[in-house]
């Protein structure tokens, strides 16, 4: 595939006064300025919750009007928390197919204007209807996953919060992150229960935010090296093992094959840590370590900026905040910034050449892997 990311944009995540359209336009404008406002012939946009009351629908024509992109074509995608990654993949595939020259990808979510129960109810739409009907929520199913992981691998429950501690340390150096103050393990483990054994600080936060990228046909930095996605049974009762996500393993295998790479060549990674115990599972499913070894990487500091494999330098979902649709693209944006030497205070001592961004839809029912960097 000869498609490159020419420019990226991201705004501050958290509670923002602006509406969805303004947030999307802010991130998009940064990305468009990054290519000197060169002509765009495709816009791919994504949002999960914009259909609600007062949401800016129809999103694409309103965004095109706002950004003066009415001369472009437009595609709209949705894949819950994987929406941003799906939008990026859609644009890359459209460019690779030869139909377009330069695409703007933008993914945005406005969440803080609704109550937590309203948002929780809307996000339960990402679960299988039969399981949502039992009063399941995303944190509840994540709690069942966490408990299986603890049992399977003999993990100390207190250590489930290690990825939160790491995330908050990383986020402190990211001016766009929602949570910029570090927390201690004891503090995380004293936060209130959401769905036992998961506590508030095991869970990523509701946030407003947007991310954007401009992709072009042709060679040059930062190249899109490999894309992969995979599905897994949506009902958790149809899964024989909850301590691993088959959709990630499938997506990773496809992306590594497409890139002609192995996990050993990946130098930096952003994983979808919607819940702290998912972070080690993702590292294991992406092939970086064996089953049950993920938390060890946090214990030993191997996930730090100058560790064996820097993980979530942006702060990830736990540190950055989780504006659903924007998240999957924000991870890609962070990898592009890191590979471009534009990551400011949160860059490793030696600039990485190849990075990977991972995104999850729903309870890991449809996952995405994006590999970016210099051609091997």
């Amino acid at each position, binding site marked *: 595939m000869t498609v490159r990311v020419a420019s990226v944009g991201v705004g501050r995540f958290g509670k923002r006064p602006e509406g969805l359209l303004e947030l999307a336009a802010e991130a998009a404008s940064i990305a468009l300025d990054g290519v000197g406002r060169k002509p765009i012939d495709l816009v791919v946009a994504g949002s999960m919750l914009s259909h609600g009351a007062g949401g800016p629908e129809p999103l694409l024509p309103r965004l095109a009007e706002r950004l003066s992109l009415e001369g472009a074509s437009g595609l709209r995608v949705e894949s819950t928390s994987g929406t941003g990654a799906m939008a990026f993949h859609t644009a890359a595939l459209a460019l690779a197919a030869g139909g377009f020259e330069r695409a703007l990808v933008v993914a945005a979510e406005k969440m803080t204007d609704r109550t937590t129960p309203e948002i929780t109810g809307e996000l339960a739409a990402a679960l299988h209807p039969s399981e949502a009907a*039992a*009063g399941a929520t995303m944190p509840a199913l994540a709690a*069942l*996953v966490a408990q299986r992981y603890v049992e399977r691998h003999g993990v100390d429950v207190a250590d489930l919060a290690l990825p939160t501690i790491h995330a908050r340390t990383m986020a402190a150096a990211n001016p766009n992150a929602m949570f910029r103050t570090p927390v201690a393990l004891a503090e995380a483990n004293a936060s209130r*229960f959401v769905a*036992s054994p998961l506590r508030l600080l095991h869970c990523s936060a509701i946030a407003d935010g947007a991310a954007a990228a401009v992709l072009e046909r042709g060679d040059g930095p930062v190249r899109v090296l490999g894309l992969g996605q995979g599905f897994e049974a949506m009902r958790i*009762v149809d899964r024989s093992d909850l301590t691993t996500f088959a959709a990630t393993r499938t997506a990773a295998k496809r992306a590594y094959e497409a890139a002609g790479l192995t996990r050993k060549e990946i130098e930096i990674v952003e994983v979808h840590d919607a819940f702290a115990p998912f972070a080690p599972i993702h590292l294991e499913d992406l092939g970086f370590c064996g089953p049950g070894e993920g938390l060890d990487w946090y214990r030993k500091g191997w996930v730090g900026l100058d560790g064996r494999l820097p993980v979530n330098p942006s702060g990830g979902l736990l540190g950055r905040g989780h504006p659903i649709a924007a998240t999957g693209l924000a991870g890609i944006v962070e990898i592009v910034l890191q590979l471009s030497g534009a990551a400011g205070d949160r860059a490793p001592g030696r600039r990485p050449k190849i990075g990977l961004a991972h995104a999850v839809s729903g309870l890991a029912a449809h996952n995405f892997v994006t590999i970016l960097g210099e051609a091997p």
Partner: protein
Amino acid sequence: MTDAPVRTLVLSRCGSCQLRYLPRDAPCPRCGANRAETYPVPPDARVLAATELSVPPPGWTAPHHLLLAEVADGVRVLAVARHAVPPGGAVRIEFDGTVYRATPTGTAGRGEGESPKARSAGPSFEPPR
């Protein structure tokens, strides 16, 4: 347990690959065939994982417990429970037409289940509104 009425639970068996699974409005989760037959099994299950939601979703009242439990043939069920049951605990599963509901039954000498007193205490569940 002698006073408990005899109840059964219904599972699906794929007519093509023989996979046993929880009935669903979709083809076989393994081979995609549309040839499921249902068959009865005892309602006894073992809890694999459990959670208590601090703030249940709209329509449910606290305490709202969800259990992942294993019934016959290794089939898994996500069930609502009124009481906490730790992993390894024994429950009886009933299907009310919409959701599966779990009641602790004790664990045949392992001592992990609820007492008979707790079991007989009042109406079991708040229905979703």
